[in-house]
């Protein structure tokens, strides 16, 4: 059974990485084979937290997708982005910095693909008005989106998986991930002028055309905006008070989504297109396959080998997880990677007596997987989306054009977070 579990898992991974078949077909097919052959069963696949579908992850994603579906109808992102572009007074570098900051902050609370889909059209509008190449701006934004998403529990799907597996709360992410992500963003902004050298020349007469944009027109329904703001405040209050209320983030997100749907009086056709059913099913199939590896003892054996390789020491283990995660997340989707690694890291943490050092392994996994997604054009879903947007806008970005910049960003950001992990969890802990 162990051999079958590994073979099916590897075959599905190859199919996902090579995109020979749709990734949904690969994971659901893999899960179906494992269930049909009895490697796992309904009890383990559907009802076990350790070896089956993590419903907390699925329903947290579903709730947030519905909230975003309503929120994107308010026009608030367009308002903020245009307002910021006007405050930049036509300086392309200032426009880029402000848009990347907005993207990073939005990404902390929304999924990265949604953030990029919201900010890219405004960026194309501003770049057209300034008559500058939009490619550097789109690249900077997608990098910022992947960086910003790392800062909270709900910012990036790998973080949701890690939180559910590790038991780390929204506040734990906020206290451990957000500070280093702020530092990473500052460094990222500092390297922008060098990274996109020669992209900031603008004809001064074009500046007036940006100032002529009317951001107030972006918001059509102020009432809806106020309702969204109120519900979002409640949702985040729910996330941050988890340690007192013990209400799971998935329940809070679903309650928030339900409340927002009731208050907004929108029809399902208005917000349901934001629910990515394929992504949710992909997660479900993935959890069944990874669960089969846990059930058959594969993960435990891998964790044991990893512990032997690092001599059972937490620091080498954390650094190894950070670097390996960054490298592998650059070439394979970070969602299946983290889904596979989470039970492995969970087992490794049980062998480390110091709680802070054990937690460092989780942060290393989150940082490596989230930031590694920037390295190549296929490293994260948001990257693929930006490539599509640029293509349709008539400014195609090649795989290598993306990767040349992405590798630099990943190398710099990983170089920033490695000493943070060492200092915070091993030297100063």
């Amino acid at each position, binding site marked *: 059974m162990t051999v079958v579990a590994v073979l099916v898992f590897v075959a599905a991974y190859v199919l996902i990485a090579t995109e020979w078949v749709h990734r949904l077909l690969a994971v659901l097919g893999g899960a179906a084979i494992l269930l049909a052959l009895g490697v796992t069963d309904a009890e383990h696949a559907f009802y076990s937290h350790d070896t089956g579908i993590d419903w907390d992850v699925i329903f947290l994603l579903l709730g947030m997708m519905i909230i975003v579906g309503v929120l994107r109808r308010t*026009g608030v992102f*367009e308002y903020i982005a*245009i307002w910021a572009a006007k405050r930049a007074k036509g300086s392309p570098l200032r426009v880029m910095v402000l848009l990347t900051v907005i993207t990073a902050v939005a990404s902390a609370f929304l999924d990265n693909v949604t953030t990029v*889909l*919201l900010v*890219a*059209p*405004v960026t*194309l*509008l501003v770049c*057209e*008005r300034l008559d500058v190449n939009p490619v550097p701006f789109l690249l900077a934004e997608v990098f910022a989106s992947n960086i910003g998403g790392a800062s909270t529990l709900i910012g990036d799907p790998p973080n949701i998986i890690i939180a559910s597996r590790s038991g780390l709360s929204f506040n734990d992410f906020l206290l451990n991930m957000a500070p280093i992500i702020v530092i990473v963003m500052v460094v990222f902004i500092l390297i922008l002028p060098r990274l996109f050298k020669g992209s900031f020349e603008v004809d001064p007469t074009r500046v007036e*055309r940006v100032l*002529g*944009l*009317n*951001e107030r*027109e*972006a918001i*059509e329904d102020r009432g809806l905006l106020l309702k969204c703001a109120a519900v979002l405040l409640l949702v985040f209050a729910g996330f941050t008070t988890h340690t007192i209320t013990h209400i799971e983030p998935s329940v809070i997100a679903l309650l928030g989504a339900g409340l927002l749907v009731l208050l907004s009086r929108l029809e399902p056709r208005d917000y349901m297109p934001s629910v990515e059913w394929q992504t949710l099913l992909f997660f479900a199939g993935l959890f069944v396959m990874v669960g089969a590896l846990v059930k058959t003892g594969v993960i435990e054996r891998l964790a044991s080998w990893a512990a032997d390789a690092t001599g059972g020491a937490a620091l080498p283990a954390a650094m190894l997880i950070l670097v390996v995660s960054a490298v592998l997340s650059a070439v394979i989707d970070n969602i299946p990677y983290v889904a596979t690694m989470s039970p492995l890291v969970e087992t490794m943490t049980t062998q480390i007596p110091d709680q802070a050092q054990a937690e460092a392994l989780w942060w290393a996994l989150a940082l490596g997987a989230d930031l590694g997604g920037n390295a190549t054009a296929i490293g994260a879903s948001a990257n693929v989306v930006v490539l599509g*947007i640029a293509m*349709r*806008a*008539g400014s195609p970005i090649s795989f290598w054009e993306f990767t040349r910049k992405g590798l630099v960003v990943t190398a710099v950001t990983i170089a920033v977070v490695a000493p943070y992990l060492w200092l915070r969890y091993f030297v100063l802990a």
Partner: protein
Amino acid sequence: MAEEFPVVSADAEALEAARLLATQRLPGLIVTDERGKPCAILPASQVVKFLVPGYVQDDPSLARVVDETLADRVADKLTGTTVRKLLPERPPELPVVKADDTMLEVAALMARLRSPLVAVVDGDRIVGAIAASRLLELAMQPH
């Protein structure tokens, strides 16, 4: 049922095609290839879509934030463009009927392909076209 209808070549200037649509208030144009054979129908709505910037198509709320000066200038996009560029990348099935097809056959094709216009052909030769308005006109005549 078929009427004479303006035909444009795929390599004709887009601006000319748009002008034809505008001045004659046509629902669309029949587009022909280099051999004069019909290769596509260019609905007026497709030309309108081409005029709308991609970012506004992705985020319609941006149409409101752009001042009228830019909105007035969108027709400039057609200058230097050919009709071929206005057509969808993957052209849908060509809506053509034969001269002896019934009104119901024409209506069924129009409905299925959501085309405001069908070309009437005899072999490879265009003998006319039927617009949705012409079809309705005939359908509403008392029998």
